[in-house]
């Protein structure tokens, strides 16, 4: 009964999405106010029905309803409750339902936080999002219905993939999808702007916070995925250049370009058509990522059940959505105009150069991901592309980008002087070169690549210092703290995100340069020493978890003869699927991780044990967090809050008669100020 309700709610949501995708857009074109006014309530109705559908699926998982195919395939009665809930989006069907559910959540957010936008604009934006929603709900209903029954019901489910039974995996897909789907807002704004021909600074200002939030979610999502791979795959790696990872990285690269390009469009009115193109690209790559993962054209460890009919459907959908957007772009963009002019040396040109570098990087990652497919289609041979290609291409492209990242924030808009910039940055450059040359000695061994990586990181940090110092110098009277407080949040947010890149580079450079690993046979009581730590193996004993059996190793970590920690890596075998999983034990630290994983058992209680010493590895994810915080800080900037504030003022005047309400609004406004 419950799954049928879910199915019915999904069908109703489809009808509402159809309404949302047609009437408001037509209404906006013909000037029919009642059709325009339809947009918001329809969006909210669609959200309610999708929430019901999603709730029904989650209910079936929680109650182990194995008469639902999706549940029987991806869950098990022994599965702990939190993973049964997470299993709702662990399968192909469930994750797509999550996708549309999030799309509707974003649409509701747009409908709520867009009171200050012209109604026609909102109608167009929500209409475009409705059309996207139609495609995805149709896809669900036609090819991958999560509520399909399995009759007669299975007695027991075949369990969720053990790789996915992990807290990181519970929140990784929702975060990633929030990012993917979030770019649909920027996309919808861009399409709405193309339809209306109204593309000005105000348009950029509206799209900017939405794009930034989506980018923040995507950043966190990718970070969680990488962190998960690190501690769950038992391999110690944090990025594999796997097609599915690339599928999430591509929209991130383009999204990063978009965030910067929007800044130029808002502040200077330039790059208009370029910004629109980026917005279309970012969302297109999100869709393409879905296609690559779901259709089976590329093989990957992540590939879920693949099915050619699904592939055909998604490809058709891609052609309609991306093809028509690009056609619209080709038709309308030439009328947009170029916006403000700028010199060869200016902040605009540097941002444009960085944008291009990011796009070329995205292009080469895309090429590497699709290369085996392209070569095969052309009958030119069969080729596999691995991490060496990506590293060889990516690093040289990012090097000038990072150099420009230091220059850009110090350069003037419109026209900057190169000699003057060089003069202002000579100390920053000197300091970063010297530190980069010396730092590797502190780590114990000088390596050219490490020094180079550190140079990039220190360059960013040094230029941030120079920028803040000069900014303070130019901001009038007052003490240091008054001056610091005077700067806008968006200014700090930029530097925070850039600092995140520096921290990330430090992590990557140092862990690649100085990590040590040993793969040793350990008898009971034997020790191995690495990076100043001694590991003593006390044997492994059987333990049982809720849905698995495991051997748990017991390893003492000693420093200077003193025991500082016990590490307990596991080797698990899951009951239902019989899959073996390595569960490493990790001791996390600011300056290093100790990472221990069990290999194969040997005779007499001895085991093969892998031990890693990974200096600064957590800086990789900490850097990503800083970038994300930068993004969050940017959307809380005063000029966006001002709008919320002025809205409060409006409501206050309307209800000024009611004392209680007015004082509440006053409180809220006061809270905003604080």
């Amino acid at each position, binding site marked *: 009964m419950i799954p049928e309700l879910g199915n019915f709610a999904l069908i109703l949501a489809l009808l509402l999405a159809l309404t949302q995708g047609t009437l408001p857009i037509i209404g906006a074109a013909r000037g029919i106010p009642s059709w325009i006014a339809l947009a918001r309530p329809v969006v909210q109705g669609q959200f309610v029905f999708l929430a019901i559908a999603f709730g029904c699926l989650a209910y079936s998982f929680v109650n182990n309803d194995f008469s639902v195919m999706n549940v029987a395939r991806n869950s098990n009665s022994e599965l702990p409750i939190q993973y049964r809930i997470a299993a709702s989006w662990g399968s192909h069907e469930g994750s797509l339902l999550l996708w549309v559910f999030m799309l509707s959540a974003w649409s509701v957010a747009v409908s709520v936080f867009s009171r200050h936008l012209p109604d026609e604009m909102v109608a167009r934006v929500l209409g475009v999002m409705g059309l996207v929603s139609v495609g995805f709900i149709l896809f669900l209903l036609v090819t991958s219905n999560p509520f399909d029954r399995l009759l007669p019901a299975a007695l027991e489910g075949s369990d969720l993939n053990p790789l996915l039974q992990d807290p990181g995996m519970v929140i990784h897909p929702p975060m990633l999808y929030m990012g993917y789907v979030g770019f649909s807002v920027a996309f919808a704004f861009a399409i709405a702007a193309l339809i209306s021909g109204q593309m000005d600074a105000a348009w950029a200002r509206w799209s900017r916070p939405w794009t930034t939030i989506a980018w923040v979610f995507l950043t966190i999502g990718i970070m969680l995925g990488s962190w998960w791979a690190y501690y769950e795959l038992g391999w110690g790696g944090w990025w594999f250049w796997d097609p599915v990872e690339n599928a999430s990285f591509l929209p991130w690269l383009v999204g990063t370009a978009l965030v910067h390009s929007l800044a130029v469009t808002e502040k200077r009115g330039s790059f208009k058509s370029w910004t629109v193109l980026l917005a279309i690209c970012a969302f297109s790559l999100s869709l393409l990522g879905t296609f690559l993962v779901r259709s089976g054209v590329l093989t990957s460890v992540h590939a879920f059940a693949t099915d*050619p009919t699904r592939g055909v459907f998604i490809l058709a959908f891609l052609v309609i959505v991306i*093809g028509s957007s690009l056609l619209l772009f080709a038709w309308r963009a030439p009328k947009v105009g170029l916006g403000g002019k700028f010199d060869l040396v200016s902040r605009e040109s540097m941002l444009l150069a960085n944008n291009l570098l990011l796009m070329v990087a995205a292009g080469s990652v895309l090429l590497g991901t699709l290369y085996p*497919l392209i070569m095969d289609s052309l009958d030119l041979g069969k080729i596999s592309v691995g991490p060496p290609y990506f590293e060889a291409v990516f690093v040289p492209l990012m090097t000038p980008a990072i150099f420009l990242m230091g220059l850009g924030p110090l350069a003037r808009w419109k026209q900057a002087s190169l000699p003057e910039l060089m003069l202002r940055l000579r100390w920053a450059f000197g300091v970063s070169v010297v530190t980069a040359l010396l730092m590797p000695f502190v780590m114990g061994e000088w390596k050219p690549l490490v020094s180079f990586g550190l140079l990039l990181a220190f360059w960013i940090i040094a230029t941030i210092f120079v920028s803040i110092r000069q900014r303070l110098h130019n901001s009038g009277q007052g003490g240091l703290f008054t001056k610091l407080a005077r700067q806008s949040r968006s200014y700090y947010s930029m530097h925070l995100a850039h600092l995140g890149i520096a921290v990330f580079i430090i992590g990557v450079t140092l862990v690649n340069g100085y990590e040590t690993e040993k793969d040793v046979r350990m008898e009971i009581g034997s020790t191995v020493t690495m990076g100043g730590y001694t590991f003593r193996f006390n044997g492994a004993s059987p333990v049982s978890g809720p849905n698995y059996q495991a051997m748990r190793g017991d390893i003492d970590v000693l420093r200077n003869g003193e025991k500082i920690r016990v590490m307990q890596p596991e080797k698990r075998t899951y009951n239902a699927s019989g899959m073996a999983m390595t569960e490493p034990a990790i001791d996390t630290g600011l300056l290093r991780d100790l990472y221990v994983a069990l290999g194969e058992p040997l005779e007499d209680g001895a085991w093969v044990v*892998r031990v890693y010493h990974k200096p600064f590895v957590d800086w990789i994810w900490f850097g990503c967090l800083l970038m994300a915080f930068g993004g969050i800080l940017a959307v809380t900037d005063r000029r966006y809050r001002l709008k919320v504030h002025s809205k409060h003022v409006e409501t206050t005047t309307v209800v000024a008669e009611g004392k209680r309400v007015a004082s509440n609004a006053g409180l809220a406004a006061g809270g905003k100020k604080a």
Partner: protein
Amino acid sequence: MTRFLLPLAAFIVLVVFLAVGLGLKPREVPSPLIGKPAPIFQSQLLHEPGKMLASQDNLGKVWLLNVWASWCVSCREEHPLLVELARSGIVPIYGLNYKDKRDLALQWLNQYGDPYTVSVVDPEGRIGIDYGVYGVPETYVIDKNGVIRHKQIGPVTVESLEKKILPLIKELQG
């Protein structure tokens, strides 16, 4: 106007490739080598670099040649199945360690188990070219006369093992 059409043109090219790619079904590409003698190779053993294995040594028995690498993520997916198959003793599995580094490969086997009778190394991918390796992993079924009878592109799955590979091996051994 024309330069604004460029993104659309690029997208159309991409769609053509994706559409062709859908029809290709990478795991089911028929290899031109099926029914032909398996290319002869002679290469160093992974575990004992001093020793060599020549493919002709395997004449007279049915064997599997599994192409793998420590950098290959999908190999991890099929690996437990191979370990299980090796344990059952139905058919010997020979590994071709493709474009890999010896120490990484040995660590990988320690970590995930070693199903291979022996593994030979192919650091430059020369043997891989002879066999038309499309992507790692790949698995070849080779009969008593040294003829390739089946090629599995991508990871071996429970389904492909039970429906295709095991029946074929039974037939060839019979």
